[in-house]
């Protein structure tokens, strides 16, 4: 039959596809088949889940003991009343940041390399913030009183003090968790509909039907979805910058050497993005290998992320230098002594782990060969995660252990409970992540479909796909 297909005019680049090429992905069916194929459990997945749950069990056992025996077992002694718990809290909040940066900020900037990694990064954000949120509750010692953190009036109608950074923290973290979960779920709805229509098991199909809310890919749905997604990205962008700024205020608002500095918000935000990207590598590099999805997360994409890591590493390195310079230039003796003690005194080992992992090793990414070497990126990601945990250690512990009065100077050693809860936090995070990747697509099916040229009967009127 003669048909009347007309050449359609030049394709306007979609936000997801502005600068990306994935030539090995040919059509929509291939996308559904290959990404849908990641939902089948494997032996390696069960083993991974087993390891994660064992780590979580260690954490739960330690926490149970701490509740029974008291917070005094956590290794805190005046004046070091913040230790591993707050360090780990800041660490996990920071990990979450790259997810929102990749899913929201890079979406607004039309950075195409985000397309195949943003779902994993976004899920990582949600689970990292869930993990972070546990630590203030663990740290209060009496977790059943956690609701005191929520701003509400007491029986004499005395409200919480809205000038307190700790109250800002509650607002920031709870807003961040809510919005990043919402953003993740809204982006998932069309993908869940794809899975729903491929699913053969009636129970799973029913669950996916509920979760997809009856989504059908109509023009009406797409029109409102794209607009809503854009606004959610626009809200998430300042949110991600504000959350770690607010977390940094927990320190910067205190008159403690090493903390009371205006550089803290940008310093924390850059560090958070840096560590979050490293965690994205830790997760995505093994996954692309195990599922043979190298043609989705290509070396070009990893190269682009490596450049971001290199840039944020240099921002962080610059912040470290500025901190030293401000301490010297201020002429304030306790401030100068604190920084000397941090790098050449009592805490030299922690400071040098931080400096080597966060500023020296990432310089290797100036080499394009190493930027495209997945084994090196994976190893580097572990070093960066280690370095960023120690960055928070170096911020929290040396300041509290070396304040203004020499008679107060002390040391700090994490107890076995601290270490167990740190291990437990990784177990908690990876348990949720592993459960997620077997129930829901780890790559955004609809956005991957956006970046491949649609089937056409006639050649495009003005050139091909961008």
């Amino acid at each position, binding site marked *: *039959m*003669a*048909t*009347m*297909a*007309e050449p*359609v005019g030049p*394709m*306007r680049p*979609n936000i997801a596809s502005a600068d990306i090429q994935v030539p090995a992905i040919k*059509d*929509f*069916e291939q996308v*559904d088949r290959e990404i849908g194929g990641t939902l089948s459990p494997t032996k390696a997945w069960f083993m991974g889940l087993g390891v994660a749950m064992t780590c979580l069990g260690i954490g739960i056992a330690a926490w149970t003991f701490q509740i029974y025996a008291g917070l005094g077992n956590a290794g805190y002694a005046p004046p070091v009343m913040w230790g591993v718990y707050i360090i780990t809290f800041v660490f996990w909040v920071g990990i979450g940041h790259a997810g929102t940066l990749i899913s929201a900020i890079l979406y607004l900037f039309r950075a195409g390399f985000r397309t195949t990694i943003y779902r994993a990064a976004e899920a990582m954000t949600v689970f990292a913030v869930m993990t972070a949120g546990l630590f203030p509750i663990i740290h209060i010692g009496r977790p059943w009183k956690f609701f005191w953190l929520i701003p509400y*009036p007491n029986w004499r109608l005395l*409200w919480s*003090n*809205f*000038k307190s950074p700790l*109250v*800002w923290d509650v*607002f920031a973290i709870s*807003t961040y968790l*809510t*919005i990043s979960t*919402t*953003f993740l779920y*809204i982006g998932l709805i*069309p993908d869940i*509909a*794809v899975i729903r*229509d*491929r699913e053969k098991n009636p129970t799973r199909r029913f669950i996916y039907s509920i979760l997809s*809310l*009856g*989504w*059908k*890919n*109509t*023009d*009406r*749905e*797409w*029109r*409102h*979805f*794209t*607009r*809503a997604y854009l*606004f*959610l990205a626009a*809200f998430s962008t300042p949110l991600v910058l*504000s959350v770690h700024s*607010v977390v940094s205020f927990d320190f910067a608002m205190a008159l403690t050497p090493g903390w009371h500095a205006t550089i803290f918000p940008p310093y924390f935000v850059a560090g958070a993005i840096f560590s979050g990207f490293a965690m994205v590598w830790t997760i995505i590099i093994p996954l692309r290998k195990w599922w043979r999805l190298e043609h989705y997360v290509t070396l070009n994409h990893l190269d682009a992320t490596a450049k971001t890591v290199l840039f944020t590493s240099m921002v962080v390195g610059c912040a470290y230098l500025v901190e030293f310079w401000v301490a010297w230039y201020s002429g304030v003796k306790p401030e100068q002594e604190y920084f000397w003690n941090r790098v050449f005194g009592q805490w030299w080992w922690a400071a040098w782990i931080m400096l080597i992992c966060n500023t020296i090793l990432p310089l290797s990414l100036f080499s394009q060969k190493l930027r495209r070497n997945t084994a090196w990126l994976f190893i580097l990601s572990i070093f960066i995660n280690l370095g960023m945990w120690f960055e928070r250690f170096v911020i929290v512990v040396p300041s509290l252990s070396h304040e203004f009065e020499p008679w107060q100077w002390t040391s700090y050693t994490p107890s076995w409970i601290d270490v167990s809860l740190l291990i437990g936090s990784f177990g908690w995070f990876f348990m949720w992540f592993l459960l997620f990747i077997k129930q829901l697509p780890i790559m955004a099916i*609809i*956005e991957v*479909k956006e970046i491949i040229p*649609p*089937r056409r*009967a006639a050649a495009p009127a003005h050139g091909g796909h961008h």
Partner: protein
Amino acid sequence: MPGIVANFRELDRLVSAVRELQRQRLGDVTVYSPTVHHELEDVIGAPTSPVRRFTLVGGLLSASFGYWISIWTSDYWPLVTGGKAIASWIPYTIISFEMMVLVGALSTVFGMFINSRLPKLVLDVGFDPRFTNGDYGIYVQCPPEKERAAQELFGQHGASEVRHAR
């Protein structure tokens, strides 16, 4: 209302069929697409989504509420500190900002659900599971006397499958 459903394998055939359907005004048209295409947005020519109004109203109201609750509670039970302002707008901007983001984003989602008519408990008459995978589709709701014209139009524009939907 009953109508005709057509499946398309190619985007350009879909676009030209939609254009012709709009020209002939055979009935209400619903277009199904596995992903977003600007070509479809252009040919459908629907007005800008009103979701933005939900965003604006939600954001403004909650930002105002954030300032109001923190100022009101400070004045209701003043915590006087060394000559400092009882209600200080600078820290309260953080509360206001967080409230704006939280409620503004949730209002956006609410607006999307209302306008997209989600959630839906049953799938529509014209829906075909292939529309979420690789196929494009058009469902035109038309009276019986126009069904033949719609079927011919879809055939001329290269539909891979045309059928009645009730």
